[in-house]
């Protein structure tokens, strides 16, 4: 019975989470387009519904009803699999993101997280690394030179920034003393880590943006060089899955940033979930702002930034943090 | 039609040479003298006589200055327009002639007496300006002398 109930609760949580994610993702698209337009003194979507609010729905319908084309020369199975890998891994990352402190429901303590893994952080890393398979395989399976180049770029970029990303979070773990995201959030009940670890924060945000292939790190797509890079050959909802994956990824990024550095759900006055949502929203806004402002890096600049700047700096940061903890007795 | 006498004469002449072709200009000249100019009819007859095609003869006839493929007057006046005659004022002579005969260079008078044609140096530079009337040279010419010449030619016909 208990087991069943837990399952039901879990399913509900997953459903709510997924529903929320997808809805937010689609409206994130709308938001991005609208905001980007304003940053560039344009109007943005304004035909479907008022302020173009129905645009995401229109897009979804369009993508769902479009003919899906698998190139003759493509490796059909992998070609079909790749978008799913991208979307699924992005969504699965949310499984360990705590939305708030446990609440009590029907006399039970229900954690506001799908599953509070004690190695949540590693789980996140694992999934985000897995996501790159979608990109690389999609690019390869298309059997198109642009797509292949995009896929390779994606893989290379991911490998390069995975390191910096991981290293930037070592001080956080050191400070929190746990891999569990809930624990990390709890550790920031007082001071959010952004204050303690500004360098880590910066490295994390940059690396995370590179992970999510967003401007200024969108080299795998690079419209003007590679068509659309790894998803050149995709159409219809398979293309939509890549798209979805990207926007879910933005949310993941926002959530992780909030969890790791902005104190998660902690905040005065408002309910914790709202705080978290707010923080995610702010991170997303900033990312859109960045997109609307910065040009794409050159490939060598991208690599140089990752290997020559971020990784050394994060290493130094770890040492400094370690020393600080050791000698200042901070815990 | 070609008179039998001329025809047999030409045939005999052609028969005398090794290659009928070499007689082409002579035959053309003979027929031109007969017809006044080297007409299409003459061309066909000459081709017959020489065993050449009309075109082969036309290739020659249209090349040379003194073969007239178009009708000309009784007297063909060739005015030298080369350097020495030009220096000595052939332009005035030409202008006068055109005026007097009422034709342009290359034209034939309405009465069919005169055709006016330019010609390059005729080798009478010591007698410039010179003209050639029916292959007879006249020069050095003044406008008065030219008038007298035209008058004489006219009188001979009337």
């Amino acid at each position, binding site marked *: 019975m208990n087991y069943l109930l837990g399952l039901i609760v879990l399913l509900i949580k997953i459903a709510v989470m997924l529903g929320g994610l997808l809805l937010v993702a689609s409206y994130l698209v709308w938001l991005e387009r609208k905001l980007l337009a304003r940053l560039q003194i344009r109007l943005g979507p304004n035909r479907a519904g008022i302020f173009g609010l129905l645009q995401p729905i229109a897009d979804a319908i369009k993508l769902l009803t479009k003919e899906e084309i698998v190139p003759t020369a493509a490796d059909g199975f992998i070609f079909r699999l790749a978008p799913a890998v991208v979307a699924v891994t992005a969504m699965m990352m949310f499984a360990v993101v705590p939305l708030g402190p446990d609440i009590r429901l029907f006399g039970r303590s229900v954690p506001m997280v799908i599953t509070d893994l004690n190695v949540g952080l590693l789980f996140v890393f694992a999934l985000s690394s897995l996501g790159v398979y979608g990109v690389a395989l999609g690019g390869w399976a298309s059997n198109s030179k642009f797509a292949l180049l995009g896929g390779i770029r994606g893989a290379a970029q991911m490998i390069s920034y995975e390191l910096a990303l991981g290293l930037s979070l070592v001080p956080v773990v050191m400070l929190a003393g746990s891999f569990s995201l809930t624990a990390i959030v709890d550790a920031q009940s007082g001071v959010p880590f952004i204050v303690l670890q500004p360098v880590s924060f910066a490295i994390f945000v940059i690396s995370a943006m590179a992970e999510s292939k967003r401007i200024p790190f969108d080299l795998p797509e690079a419209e003007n060089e590679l068509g659309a890079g790894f998803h050149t050959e995709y159409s219809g909802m398979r293309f939509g899955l890549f798209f979805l994956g990207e926007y879910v990824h933005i949310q993941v990024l926002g959530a992780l940033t909030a969890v790791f550095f902005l104190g998660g759900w902690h905040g005065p006055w408002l309910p914790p979930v709202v705080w978290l949502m707010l923080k995610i929203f702010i991170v997303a806004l900033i990312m859109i702002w960045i997109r609307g402002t910065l040009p794409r890096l050159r490939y060598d600049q991208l690599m140089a930034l990752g290997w020559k700047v971020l990784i050394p700096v994060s290493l130094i940061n770890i040492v400094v943090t370690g020393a600080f903890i050791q000698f200042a007795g901070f815990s | 039609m070609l008179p039998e006498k001329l025809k047999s004469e030409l045939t005999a002449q052609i028969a005398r040479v090794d290659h009928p072709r*070499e007689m082409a200009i*002579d035959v053309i000249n003979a027929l031109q003298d007969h017809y006044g100019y080297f007409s299409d009819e003459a061309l066909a007859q000459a081709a017959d006589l020489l065993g050449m095609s009309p075109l082969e003869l036309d290739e*020659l006839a249209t090349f040379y200055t003194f073969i007239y493929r178009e009708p000309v007057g009784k007297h063909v006046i060739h005015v030298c327009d080369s350097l020495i005659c030009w220096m000595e004022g052939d332009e005035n002579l030409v202008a006068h002639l055109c005026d007097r005969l009422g034709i342009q260079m290359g034209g034939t008078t309405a009465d069919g007496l005169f055709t006016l044609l330019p010609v*390059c140096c005729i*080798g009478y*530079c*010591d007698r*410039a300006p010179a003209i050639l009337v029916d292959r007879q*040279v006249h020069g050095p010419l003044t406008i008065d002398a030219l008038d007298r010449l035209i008058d004489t030619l006219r009188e001979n016909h009337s």
Partner: protein
Amino acid sequence: MTATYPQVLLKNRKPDRITTLSEYREAGGYEALRRVLTEMDRQEVKTRLADALLLGRGGAGFPAGIKVSTVAEDAPFPRYLVCNADEMEPGTFKDRVFLHAEPHMLIEGMALAAYSIRASHGIIFIRPEYESAAKILEREIGIARGEGLLGERILGSDYDFEIVVHRSGGRYICGEVTAQLNALQGRRPNPKQPPPYATDKGLWGLPTLANNVETLACIPHIVKNGAQWFKDLALTPEAAGTKLFCVSGKVNRPGCYELPLGIKLSEIIETCCGGMKDGATFKACLPGGASTGYLTADHYHIEMDFDSLKKARNRLGTGAVMVFDHHCCMVAATLNLTEFFARESCGWCTPCREGFPYLRDLLWRIENGQGEAGFIPMIKTMCRHLWKSYCAFAPGGVASIESLLMNFEDEVMAHIEGKGCPFKK
């Protein structure tokens, strides 16, 4: 006046008629032919011609002796001798004067030249304007034949030689030897670049020797009097013989004069021709017909022979001296010459066929006030390129234009800057 110079070709010239056969024989005519047929062998005629340094008088100045010896001993028969009386170079009329004076000298010269190469057929290619000369020649050939000087078994020897007169239809290009041979064969008179050379494969593919009237006329005298005598006739050591100079233009007594090669231009104009007309001043002259360049006052005292003119980057050509005075517009004169060449180009090769009308257009524009300074380099380049045309016609045709730009560029510029001809104002 002419008496002061040794006279060879025009010695017996009568003012109004030809030297008849009997008169010619009295003056020693046909003596050379008789001696050659009875006493000398062919080789000696050839040797004397070669030694005499007789240069072709038709314009190119090619040594006649060499040309005669290029007919191979074992070449097939019949062989032909062509006499070029197609004198169409503007300003040139020496052959006309000569033919109206000494037809027999030519006949004898042809017989001698033909004998030296064992030719049996002689053809005189004559321009239609010289109809009277053609008639004279035909008549005199008949007379000579009657006397046994032509035809079968000449002067009792076993040598046969027959001459016919071929009237041209009249085109400048027919003076070019290969074109002339084409014309004689009833083909279009386009030049034909050697090889094969005419002396090898000429008329109907047989050996053919072609020479100018004057060149052929010199032969009897050389044969009779020897090479050294001929060489001594000239005033300069490199030159040999006398030359018929045709002087025309702004001189008091234009005409044809037999003068020794190497005579000074000034002497021709002043002594022979009675100086410039109406006290005009000498501006320039063409020393040898339309296809030579201008000689300016700088060269007023130049020695008129083949070598001296070559040194002055000019040519003796046919020896037709055309004199211009200071009233004469050199651009207009050159335009007239270019007009001539544009009209007479045979149309075979591109640079000549299209280049001359182009040059005429440019010169016409300069003369008529539509000139531009840019035309001058254009004309210069084009003249340079016209040298690469098929035959010698175009290089001759651009000689006057090139020397116009070399010697009278100021005058051309005056036309361009003044928007018209300064001589017309």
